[in-house]
């Protein structure tokens, strides 16, 4: 048998929970060669992270149990080695970077100290460690690295923190870098930069890169080969372009089919209709910082207006100001002719029924101590004029039915539902008040791709039936392309461009919009290769 750098053979891991034994992964085989990038693709709960955790000795036993299998690294079975031996390998020969760099950097030490610690822990003298640390910071592209070496993690942006994590991982020139969703928490443009950096570094050092992701776009961008996982089993494996072009397993087909960005573009609505919402020059300052500057847009009845932008672009501030969760500094937001911003509380209370919100993370937006019935019917309790109490139960039943949940589950608590179901509960809660406009603040970005598609279908369906308008805040461009009528692009608190979907996507006028489009990842490796060439050309030109 050919010698691979790392090989996982017949790995099965169980977790013993109170609800019984969960087979996290079953009989998983894959290998990684030097200088190659292998992506493990799967949705949440597919067990894609488990084999990586097994490699890094991060599985807690109990409740975890490695039932069978071996992990061969350089011909030695990691699972048979002592903890001390594995500690010697971890960090030195096999390094890992995580999704959320902030929670993996210790806030009370300087980043320089933390990078050096990896090296000193494995026996490098401190002065050499310092030199190597500076070299690394320069390599991963931290600006003014010589002075930033003594800064603390909170002084860096999200993308820079991920660069720091990469520097830390590369400190000892590992043979394998395991990257667990390394760019999921980052903006598209930053994501593209980090992926490019990872690829460059891999080519430079010849290490093997194991990338764990849920994003077909990321796979298309960097992976050579891909392993597709579903509920603990490998359903398909092959080269990235092959798997995308000819998926054999139904699950892979479903996954590729669910990826947004290839559907038909929705035609913009007739502009002759009176807008339901008209925002003029809305501004919000936090002290001297302008989170939202002079934003103006309109929403027509039955229209979906998407607000896209990267983090810090002011799109969430726009939503919060509109819903009076924050008070605007200046400007107006006319709701059917009445100004929301200056409205007295009493009038605002009545208007709350018309404008509802669906939040990003349904785990946090649903009170964990209330049953689904309590959550959905709370709107009736707050606005008693909607419905007499005797009909609450029937109405909640209807609403749950409408969003595709079983009405019999109304006495359960939110934690008993999956992420997608929870978001449906949140939508049912919003619908209970019979709103005309629903503000969706990244309402689907915490969900898996296939679930995302279902929720979007639900929203579209509800719009058709109830004539709802949506203000859809998102960072995911392909999703917006399929779903919205019009797009508003924001940057640094300002609206830089707005127009119908076709115009923004096919002929963006502003450079920022073009950058955003170029950085977003397409699931097709062939398309993605094309885009990369275009992006590089753009970089060279500028």
């Amino acid at each position, binding site marked *: 048998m050919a010698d691979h750098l790392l090989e996982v053979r017949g790995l099965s891991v169980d977790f013993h929970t*109170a*609800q019984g034994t969960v087979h996290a992964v079953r009989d998983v085989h894959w290998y990684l060669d030097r200088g190659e990038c292998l992506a493990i693709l799967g949705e949440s709960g597919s067990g894609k992270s488990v084999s990586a955790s097994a490699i890094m000795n991060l599985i807690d036993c109990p409740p975890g149990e490695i039932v069978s299998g071996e992990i061969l690294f350089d011909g030695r079975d990691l699972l048979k080695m002592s903890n001390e031996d594995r500690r010697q390998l971890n960090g030195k020969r096999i390094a890992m970077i995580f999704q959320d760099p902030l929670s993996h950097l210790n806030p009370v030490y300087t980043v320089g100290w933390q990078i050096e610690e990896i090296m000193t822990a494995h026996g490098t003298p401190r002065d050499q460690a310092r030199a190597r640390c500076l070299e690394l910071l320069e390599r991963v592209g931290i600006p003014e690295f010589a002075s930033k070496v003594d800064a603390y993690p909170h002084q860096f942006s999200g993308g820079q923190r991920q660069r720091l994590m990469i520097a830390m991982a590369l400190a000892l020139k590992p043979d394998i870098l395991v990257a667990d969703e390394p760019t999921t928490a980052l903006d598209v443009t930053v994501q593209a930069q980090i992926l490019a950096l990872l690829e460059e570094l891999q080519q430079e050092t010849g290490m093997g890169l194991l990338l764990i992701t849920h994003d077909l776009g990321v796979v298309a961008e960097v992976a050579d080969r891909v392993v597709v996982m579903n509920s603990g089993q490998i359903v398909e494996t092959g080269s990235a372009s092959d798997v995308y072009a000819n998926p054999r397993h139904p699950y892979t087909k479903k996954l590729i089919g669910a990826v947004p960005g290839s559907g038909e573009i929705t035609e913009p609505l007739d502009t002759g209709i009176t807008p339901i919402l008209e925002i003029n020059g809305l501004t919000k300052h936090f002290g001297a910082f302008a989170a939202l500057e002079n934003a103006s847009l309109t929403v027509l009845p039955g229209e979906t207006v998407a607000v896209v932008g990267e983090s810090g672009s002011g799109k969430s501030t726009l939503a919060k100001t509109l*819903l009076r*969760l924050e008070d605007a500094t200046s400007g107006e937001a006319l709701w059917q002719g009445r100004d929301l911003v200056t409205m007295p509380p009493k009038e*605002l*209370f009545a208007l*709350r*029924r018309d*404008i*509802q*919100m669906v*939040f*990003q*993370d349904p785990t*946090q*937006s*649903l*009170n*964990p*101590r209330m*049953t689904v019935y309590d959550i959905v019917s*709370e*709107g009736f*309790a*707050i*606005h008693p004029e909607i419905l007499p109490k005797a009909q609450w139960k029937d109405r909640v039943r209807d609403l749950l039915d409408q969003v595709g949940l079983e009405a*019999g*589950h109304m*006495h*359960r*608590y939110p*934690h*008993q*539902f*999956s992420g997608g*179901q929870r978001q449906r509960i*949140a939508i049912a*809660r919003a619908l209970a*008040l019979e709103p005309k406009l629903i503000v969706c603040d990244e309402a689907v970005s915490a969900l898996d791709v296939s679930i995302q598609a279902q929720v979007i279908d639900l929203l579209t369906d509800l719009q058709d039936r109830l004539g709802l308008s949506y203000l859809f805040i998102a960072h995911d461009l392909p999703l917006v392309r399929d779903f919205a009528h019009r797009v508003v692009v924001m940057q640094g608190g300002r609206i830089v461009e707005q127009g119908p979907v076709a115009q923004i996507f096919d002929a963006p006028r502003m450079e920022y919009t073009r950058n955003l489009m170029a950085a977003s990842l397409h699931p097709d490796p062939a398309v993605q290769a094309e885009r990369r060439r275009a992006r590089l050309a753009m970089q060279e030109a500028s």
Partner: protein
Amino acid sequence: MTSTDSKTTPDAPPAYISVLRMLWRDKFAFTAAIFLLVVIFGAIFGPMLLEDVATKQNLRGRNAPIFDFSRPWVYWLGADALGRPLLARIIVASQNTIMVAAGAVFCSLTIGTCLGLIAGYTSRLPSQIIMRLADIIMSFPSLLLAVLVLYMLPPSVFNLVIVLAITRLPVYLRTARAEVLEVRERMFVQAAIVMGASGSRIVFRHILPVILPTVLTIATLDFALVVLVESSLSFLGIGIQPPEITWGLMVSQGRPYLTSAWWLSFWPGLAIVLTTLSLNLLSNWMRTALDPVQRWRLEMRRKKNG
């Protein structure tokens, strides 16, 4: 996750049955609950039945040894320096002790939590006033405060409760406020605001249930502390005065005899410890039982056992 196994049947057993069932799953909590019931029973009916026995002096039986089964049952735990039966005295003393401790803990818990909710949820000014008030109470040695107040007011159960409640107030106030500040930023609170929920609805429906387990846990820990503070006040002569008795007072009365008759302090001390321990176990159970996310831990065992 658990979408298949926990099907709630429409006609589930009434609430009190399922509560009792969950209590039965946790054997420690169950024992604790039984013990506390006994204590409460003793506190209510003890003085009525045993008052005379407990105060009757018997100088021939001074510091009578424990486990002398030839005597009547009230003497089985020994007798104190004046020959009064310890068992009877512990039962009689439980009334005052429980009244003072439970009263003080309850008052400080409710008032402190309410003020904490106000301080955490309202605007700056009321919050500042409440917090500075708490600072003043905290910076004042609690014993000194008690001495001052009780010097002016006659020592009685009621006054003692007030003094103890005031001194323990800041603990609840600060904890509640800190928790409120965190919980009010959570998404579900924002979702309620967007729906137009009023301030009181948000505080009582959304915030209070989340912070309640924390303050209840503090309250059970505080119970023992209050019992001991009460005993030290009584020892100083400004708390409960003999011939009235409390457990704390009994502990301090037994102090001079620790070398010759340790049981004088031991039994009332044990009563304090067991009561507090039971409260702790019960509050621990309650925290799990009240939390829908954790409740399965208590419901699970049912499936395993049955």
